[in-house]
């Protein structure tokens, strides 16, 4: 099965071509079925591949052909199948399949139905290339490919300005990150003479500390773009302009985790590069708490989830930074399920309310959308890290790893963020599903989604409940550690083998943080003690800062973009007036010079004779002067 690993991306690619070429004219609704089946087939092959890797084939390279080879540079289209990539293949295909099925219902009445599935298939193809690639250059193909699909799908409803503005913002911010990726990738080649993961990681020793630091910082800058970390995070909340299944698949479960995957994949480099890992951890931690505070005060249900995603991705980078890549990938996997579920659930609510996303107009919906409510409740619990739900096991490992790795400050930030997380998820759930309906018109017309949408919710809910226990128990020694451990095990990073008592205490603190957040949330929203409105009034300036997302968007979109626009405008003016002006002035000079000289051509023979005589005189004088040595010193 591993030799057939290329079938996994081949199915979505075929679906992309079929839907793209024939969708608009002939296939119509069939496009959804074709795309979903293709991804389903990919998932089946991915399961097969996973089982074989599990069976002991821990590193296989499947080469297709040489892509670019010039001089001493060679890169190929080849897949690296190892535990890390097989887990990613599994997560991507399974979650994608469920979201594809869901989309058949969600997008049912959209006139761009075929376009949606065409691009979604292309996205899955690109994402699979990203996780399968055996070298940095091919990975970059997937990396940019998912960025493109993200652009296309955020801007899916391109007749309104908000989506396409958000789409461009996403692509450009990703490109800024890709600048870092490009530098990292090319420097890797210069240092190691190859871009292939296996070549590079086996020869980490030949690189100097400075080289490694440059490579890692550059790659991490790329990761902050793709995975929406500070300072390149602000495209992700805007990306919610895309259809909700897109938010679930691309902007929660898969694409945004690419940066985490990149760093996890490059762990041997990062581990050897000293301070680089600390940078990753600190940026992750700051992003986690930063985004969580913004999520506290948002009223758009999808924006809450978006900031939550930024925050959870921060946790994953925190894990990478404290040297716990397995915990990061573990959290990546569980997060893919519960956050996809939260998004699809939000989508179900929005679908049921005919497009309304403002939580202030919801309330009491649990009676109208029971399946959505219960599945989302589980996912919310997982996000708040309540045992035994999946999020608990993975998040707990991350904060524990921070503590055990000797980063008490990062641990404290992790715990504090956990309180905030539990609070905002409680708030979102309460405002949406509990209390009294605040908009009766909307409430009366609300309806539960069809089975094609609720079944994927249920399937994701199963994952949300069992995944953590299934692969993460017992903590630190669970299946995921045994499976991924050998890949992630690199010099410079010791797998922690702490005592059971320590683990229990840390877990207890972590759970207590979650429960505290939930209790505060319930107290405020159920019993109005303290009343949220009063709190926001009392917090005054702080509240305004949070509602305005720390004014970062103003800074980026207004100040910085405006400054660049002014500078570029000035350059154009320079081009027109100075460079071109000079050229035109030269032309003018030639023209006026010519017409002035024309006056010498008087047509009077006497004048010409006079000039001839004058010329002769000059020549005589000069020649005579030279001949007699008058001009020589």
């Amino acid at each position, binding site marked *: 099965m591993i030799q057939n690993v290329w079938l996994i991306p081949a199915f979505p690619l075929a679906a992309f071509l079929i839907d793209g070429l024939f969708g*608009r004219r002939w296939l119509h609704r069939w496009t959804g079925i074709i795309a979903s089946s293709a991804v389903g087939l990919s998932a089946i092959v991915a399961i097969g591949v996973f089982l074989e890797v599990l069976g002991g084939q821990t590193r296989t390279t499947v080469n297709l*052909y*040489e*892509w*670019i*080879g*010039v*001089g*001493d*540079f060679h890169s190929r289209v080849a897949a690296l199948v190892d535990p890390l990539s097989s887990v990613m293949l599994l997560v991507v295909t399974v979650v994608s399949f469920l979201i594809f099925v869901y989309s058949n219902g969600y997008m049912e009445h959209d006139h761009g139905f075929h376009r949606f599935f065409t691009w979604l298939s292309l996205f899955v193809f690109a994402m699979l290339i990203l996780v399968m690639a055996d070298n940095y*250059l091919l990975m*970059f*193909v997937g990396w*940019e*490919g998912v960025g*493109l699909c993200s*652009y296309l799908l955020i*801007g899916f409803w*391109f*007749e309104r*300005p908000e989506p*396409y*503005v958000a*789409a*461009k913002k996403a*692509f*450009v911010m990703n*490109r*800024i990150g*890709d*600048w870092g990726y*490009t*530098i990292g990738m*090319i*420097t890797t*080649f*210069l240092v190691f003479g190859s871009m292939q993961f296996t070549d590079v990681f086996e020869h980490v020793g030949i690189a100097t500390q400075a080289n490694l630091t440059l490579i890692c910082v550059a790659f991490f800058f790329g990761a902050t773009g793709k995975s929406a970390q500070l300072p390149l995070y602000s495209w992700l909340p805007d990306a919610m302009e895309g259809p909700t299944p897109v938010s679930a698949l691309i902007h929660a479960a898969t694409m945004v985790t690419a940066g985490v995957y990149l760093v996890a994949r490059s762990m041997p480099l990062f581990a050897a590069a000293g301070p680089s890992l600390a940078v990753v951890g600190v940026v992750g931690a700051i992003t986690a708490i930063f985004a969580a505070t913004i999520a506290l005060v948002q009223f758009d249900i999808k924006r809450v989830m978006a900031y939550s995603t930024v925050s959870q991705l921060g946790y994953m980078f925190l894990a990478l930074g404290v040297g716990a890549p397995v915990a990061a990938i573990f959290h990546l996997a569980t997060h893919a399920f519960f956050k996809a579920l939260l998004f699809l659930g939000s989508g179900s609510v929005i679908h049921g309310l005919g497009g309304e996303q403002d939580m202030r107009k919801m309330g009491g919906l649990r009676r109208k959308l029971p399946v959505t409510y219960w599945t989302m409740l589980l996912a919310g619990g997982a996000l708040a890290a309540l045992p035994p739900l999946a999020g608990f096991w993975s998040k707990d490992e991350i904060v524990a790893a921070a503590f055990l790795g000797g980063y008490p400050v990062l641990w404290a930030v992790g715990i504090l963020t956990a309180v905030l997380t539990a609070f905002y998820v409680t708030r979102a759930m309460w405002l949406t599903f509990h209390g009294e309906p605040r908009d009766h018109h909307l409430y009366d017309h609300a309806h539960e989604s069809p089975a094609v949408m609720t079944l994927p919710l249920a399937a994701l809910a199963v994952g949300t409940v069992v995944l953590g226990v299934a692969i993460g128990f017992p903590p630190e020694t669970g299946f995921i550690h045994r499976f991924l451990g050998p890949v992630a095990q690199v010099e410079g990073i010791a797998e922690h083998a702490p005592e059971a008592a320590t683990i229990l205490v840390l877990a207890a603190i972590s759970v207590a943080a979650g429960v505290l957040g939930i209790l505060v949330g319930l107290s405020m929203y159920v019993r109005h003690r303290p009343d949220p409105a009063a709190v926001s009034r009392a917090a005054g300036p702080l509240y305004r800062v949070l509602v305005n997302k720390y004014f970062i968007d103003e800074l980026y979109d207004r100040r910085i973009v405006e400054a*660049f*626009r002014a*500078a*570029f*405008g000035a*350059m*154009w003016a320079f*081009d027109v007036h100075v*460079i*071109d002006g000079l*050229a035109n002035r030269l*032309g003018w000079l030639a023209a006026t010079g010519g017409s002035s000289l024309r006056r010498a051509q008087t047509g009077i023979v006497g004048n010409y004779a006079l000039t001839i005589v004058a010329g002769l005189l000059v020549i005589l004088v000069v020649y005579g002067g030279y001949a007699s040595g008058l001009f020589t010193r």
Partner: protein
Amino acid sequence: MTIDHILTLLLAVPAIGLLPLYVFRNDPRSVKQVAVVTTLFELLLSLVMLAQFHVGDAGFQLIEQADWLPSLGIRYLVGVDGISVLLVPMTTLLTFISVLYSSGGAIKDRIASFMAAFLILEIGMVGVFVSLDLFLFYVMFELMLVPMYLIIGIWGGPRRIYSTLKFVIFTLAGSLLMLVAIVAVWLASGDEGARTLSLPELLASRGRFSADFQFWVFLAFGLAFAIKLPMVPFHTWLPDAHVEAPTAGSIILAGVLLKAGGYGFLRFALPLFPVGTQLWLPVIIVLSVVAILYGAAVSTVQKDLKKLVAYSSVAHMGFVTLGIFVLNAQGGVGAVLQMLNHGFVTGALFLFVGIQYERTHRRLIADLGGLANRWPLYTTFFGIFVLASLGLPGLNGFVGEFLVLLGTFKFSGVPLGGLFWGPVAALGVILAAVYLLWMFQRVMYGPVREAYRALPDLSPIEVVCAVPLVVLTVLLGVFPQQAIAIIEPSLQQVLRLATDPGFQVAIK
């Protein structure tokens, strides 16, 4: 199938086509048919030529020669190597597409003269890429100028006279300098009676070119090529020429004519004047990086679609000169690929801007919008070319730019080093995404405008024009190795000549 004298045949076919064109000059229908058939035949012939080319050989192939001006040592000498052999089919394809598109109704006035200009232009363009004698090259270089002068000046927009004069004066200024340099090279090439302008013989006698001589001669050649490319600060003729040129003229101008500059560097300037190359290299590298950033920055604030694409060409051609002058295999191959890819992609962008203009009669970005909903085919094609132009991996534009960047990172023979200029040049890639996507969204996205609601999507002829370009855009992105295998041996040969250690001593 082997055809003898195929390069001469390639130069002859457009000339032969002129005859029926003249005979049927008063019947537009026949004129179009003759022009389309001639350029199609030329295209097929160039593909046969490509098939006859032996991949892997570094030297010149399919050589033909005849005495021309024997007393001056000037010969008719043509041949192709890995660097030129792909540029010829690119030329014939773009010419065919230009003629086909123009026969679809874009040109209504004096169609016979228009087509004749294109056939003559084709002789000049193919001639530039196959000439191995400096004099022949010069003749072909100038032969391209005249028809393009007429194409812009007669079938151009409202400011066509200003623009075409500017184009001609700029180019002529450069090529006259080149002529002087050619005479100087001729004088220096040997003793009385043994002088020559044939490239192979000049290479054998290049040891006679002193360092001072190379400095000045390289400057003269370099100026001619820099204006043609165009490099900053000699680029201002380009936006004006493009804005006024008819669509077919823009396709050829951007697609082929600019390449004569980059090609000239590789074919003549580098191998003949290694010392001159070394002396001028830092200047050219800095100007290339400036072109990449400056062209891109100015593109972002353009209001006119054609100007935007024109300025983006300045940035893209910056990658060509950068790749050539970092003097390594990756940079050089990347530069040649970039020339090819820019030919297909920017040619296509101008084609699509033209198609759009034909319908809306608007070229200002602010006047457009919402076209995506009415024109799904147009949007798809245009979108693919935009993505290729901004260097999306998997499409062709990426391969050339990536290799050039790689070569730049590697290169240390310039102040501050490749690790400075490489990342700086890479910033241009960010800007490309900004100006292209911003343009795309303002033109294609947004609500449908009433005025454009009834306008039709691509016509069959337009689809025929676009499909080969899309196919090449994808193929050269996914399977570039076939092209690289053709280019690399000859490019390595040029690099060996340009970095010959025997010449290094002359540099201080």
